[in-house]
């Protein structure tokens, strides 16, 4: 096992994304919740890192901090060496609910993200949007309304919307959690195909260990209360990966065992 799954080492090339000792607390009435406690993470250009952990472990908080939607209490997030101070179109985010705008049709939704690309003409924006709808296989649905789409189609549109402005980093917050298994598997295949073509840096949050093992070059394990990064696992399987293979299952089972150990053990205990 040590041969296939090892503690991931820092990437040789300068990292695309650096999370350095980030902490975040939230006040809920009188209580203070340490959502994230001194988390550090390095993600290389083109790498896909999956953040896994039980709910309340701070993985979505970390994603929001990387997106610039929230500000850390201490520590810093930087992309290409530049500190993140707010949202930017170099980092696009996908949410669990598609967050598509119901007052726009499918094409309008994809165009929304492009409206901040000042260097494109209206016709060029339209072409870029259509190209990305074709990329997710929805070119025939550009005039459809959001409520007419299935859950999987909505997430495809959300993916097209996130990809269209050509961000370098894609942040995905449990984007497939609400979908049925069949649709999810189809999307794993599509996602891996698109990544192979576009080479984005991806941070993917999930509570599904198999999903993480299927999509991630690296799986980062979080534990809750306070939210901490506890372990990392490199997944060095060939792509495209099929979530139903035995190798993938054996990788996933190691992460699952570590996760169960974390939940059983008290805070502060080392987990390997």
């Amino acid at each position, binding site marked *: 096992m040590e041969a296939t799954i090892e503690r991931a080492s820092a990437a040789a090339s300068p990292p695309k994304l650096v999370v350095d000792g980030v902490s975040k607390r939230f006040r809920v009435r009188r209580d203070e919740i340490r959502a994230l406690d001194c988390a550090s993470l390095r993600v290389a250009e083109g790498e896909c890192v999956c953040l896994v952990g039980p709910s309340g472990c701070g993985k979505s908080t970390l994603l929001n901090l990387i997106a610039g939607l929230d500000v850390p209490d201490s520590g810093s997030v930087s992309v290409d060496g530049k500190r993140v101070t707010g*949202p930017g179109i170099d980092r696009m985010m996908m949410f669990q609910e598609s967050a598509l705008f119901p007052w726009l049709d499918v094409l309008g939704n994809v165009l929304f993200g492009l409206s901040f690309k000042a260097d494109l003409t209206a016709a060029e924006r339209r072409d870029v949007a259509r190209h990305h709808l074709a990329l997710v296989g929805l070119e025939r649905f550009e005039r459809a309304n959001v409520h007419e789409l299935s859950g999987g189609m909505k997430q495809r549109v959300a993916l097209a919307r996130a990809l269209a402005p050509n961000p370098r980093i894609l942040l995905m917050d449990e984007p497939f959690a609400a979908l049925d298994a069949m649709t999810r598997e189809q999307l794993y295949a599509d996602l891996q195909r698109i990544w192979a073509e576009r080479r984005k840096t991806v941070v993917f949050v999930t509570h599904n260990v198999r999903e993480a093992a299927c999509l991630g070059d690296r799986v980062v394990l979080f534990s809750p209360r306070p939210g901490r990064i506890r372990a990392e696992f490199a997944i060095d399987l060939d792509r495209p990966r099929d979530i139903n293979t035995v190798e993938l299952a054996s990788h996933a089972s190691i992460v699952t065992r570590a996760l169960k150990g974390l939940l059983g053990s008290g805070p502060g205990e080392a987990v390997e």
Partner: protein
Amino acid sequence: MKRVLSALGAFAAAVVLWETLVRLEIWPPMLAPSPVDVGAYLLESARDRSLLDAAAVTVKRLLLGYAAGLGAGVPIGLLCARFRFFEDTVGLVALGLQTLPSVCWVPLALLWFGQTEAAMFFIVVMGSLWSIVLATDNGVRHVPPIYARAARTMGSRGMHTWIKVVLPAALPFVVTGMKQGFAFAWRSLMAAEIYVTILTGFGLGHLLHYGRELLAMDAVAGIMIVILVIGLLCDKILFSPLERFLHRRWGT
């Protein structure tokens, strides 16, 4: 087509029933005009243009006042939703004034503006404004925060988020408020025209008032039908396209 025919049939039956009841002379003929008399009045007043002119005057007042109420109400509603101070002050006043029957504005408008178009305009604005303010405020508060967050990650900021995301997301609520505001505007204008005689324009309300003074029941009934039809037409022309859009886009 079948729906149109059956509806027309029902209306025809209602008119026949009306005529029959009138012929039975259960009520004094002076108080119960026959549909034939009402039709004759409508034809006659259409020919001498008195009804058309009055309708034009009234509709112009309605649309002007309503447009002003809408133009002011939506931004005020946005301010209330955005700033707590506005919510605590303007929002509270709006909530109170919305429940105020709009005819209550008539004495105040008369004292402030006299028997002028300004008084009419003021009454219509006051009638429609508050429900539009409240609906916009309420609609914005019901917008799922995820829309604004998603827009922010795509580079939307400040005013852009308000105009391009929050306002359209609140549209179903805003349209409901617009419809309510329109109904209130229409009612307050009729109340104003019936109570206030002004020399700059003779509206449907005035016509109705004089119909009563002259004990012309055929005119009173005919004018009421015209008022009803105008309300119906405005609803179909102003709001049906919007509601069709909402239905198509939101699937509600």
